[in-house]
């Protein structure tokens, strides 16, 4: 007798009830529903020429501070919006709104990551037609967010100098998922002799040799240029692609008439 649930199957008698057992092959992705929703989100972004960036890091690496610095440093023509993910509080969204940028807070309650459905719901609260770059600040966590596609085009990983230079080696899955990595709070480097930028870069290289790594300080603005140039270029590319897509749709529609 199974003590837990009374189902009466144990390893000793399992063979008795398993005479007519048969195997059914399934081969279905366990996150299929999420991935489908993520593709749906991405098609919204693609249609409107929005560049969607998923920002991931451990708690306290300076994701929101980076966004605040980025808002001020990006060329004025670019229209931004932010989705903030946290277990609780509106604090981060309020910080972003103070800079005149629309922000939606998702409070996940117990969930340690954002998923595609949560992001889709948040999109309802944003005028997407007036957005060029959408930043999605994921829940501070170096494990779970890497597993969930939310419809983003790129993943950005932050590592602050206060966290230790062996973090990339400890959380390799996150490093593999990243398209850009920023070493943040570089202004604190003189006070943290334990952190070696070279060691951090070497740890990243072992896991992903082609990952671009930039050292930045949101506080002083140091090193932000490559990051801003990358955002600007990616946004321009997304807009061009959307224009081309619209043009070809129009063409097909005209031919059909």
């Amino acid at each position, binding site marked *: 007798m199974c003590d837990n649930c009374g189902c009466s199957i144990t390893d000793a008698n399992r063979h008795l009830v398993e005479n007519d057992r048969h195997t059914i092959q*399934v081969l279905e992705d366990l996150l*299929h529903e999420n991935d489908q929703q993520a593709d749906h989100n991405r098609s919204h972004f693609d249609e409107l020429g929005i560049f969607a960036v998923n920002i991931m890091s451990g708690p306290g690496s300076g994701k929101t501070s980076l966004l605040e610095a980025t808002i001020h440093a990006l060329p004025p023509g670019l229209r931004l919006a932010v989705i903030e993910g946290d277990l609780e509080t509106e604090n981060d969204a309020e910080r972003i709104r103070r800079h005149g940028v629309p922000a939606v807070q998702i409070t996940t309650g117990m969930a340690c990551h954002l998923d595609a459905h949560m992001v889709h719901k948040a999109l309802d609260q944003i005028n997407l037609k007036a957005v060029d770059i959408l930043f999605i600040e994921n829940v501070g966590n170096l494990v779970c967010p890497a597993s969930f596609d939310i419809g983003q085009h790129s993943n950005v990983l932050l590592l602050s100098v206060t966290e230790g230079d062996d973090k990339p080696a400890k959380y390799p899955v996150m490093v*593999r998922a990243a398209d850009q990595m920023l070493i943040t709070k570089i202004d604190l480097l003189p006070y943290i002799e334990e952190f070696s930028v070279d060691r951090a870069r070497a740890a990243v290289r072992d896991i992903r040799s082609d990952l671009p790594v930039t050292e930045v300080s949101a506080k002083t603005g140091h090193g932000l240029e490559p990051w801003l140039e990358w955002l600007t270029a990616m946004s321009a590319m997304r807009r061009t692609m959307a224009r081309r897509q619209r043009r070809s749709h129009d063409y097909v529609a005209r031919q059909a008439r």
Partner: protein
Amino acid sequence: MHETAIVEGLMRILEEQAAQHRVTRILSVTVKVGRLRAVEPQQLIACFEMFAEGTVAECARLVIDSMPVRARCKACKMEFEVPRFRFECPGCAGGDVAVIQGQELYIESFEAGSG
């Protein structure tokens, strides 16, 4: 704890499949999990036991087929198993490699029986 979300997906698939195949009892479930998915097997099993309670999969055994990470070197085309997330080609020491295994996260099959 992304394992709960993964098990939710698994339970949804199992219940759909059980209804479709008129299965009243699931004895075991085999899932393929790549090492790059950062899934903790013990947590996955604990979640599964909890979620399966009161369903057709109650007391079913969850078999986790853990897939090691494999990569192909883009320079010398060598295929190799990646030890401890060190993505360096053992043939030519190149770092530009494509992952060919280790991203799996799917249900392969389940065993049905009456009981």
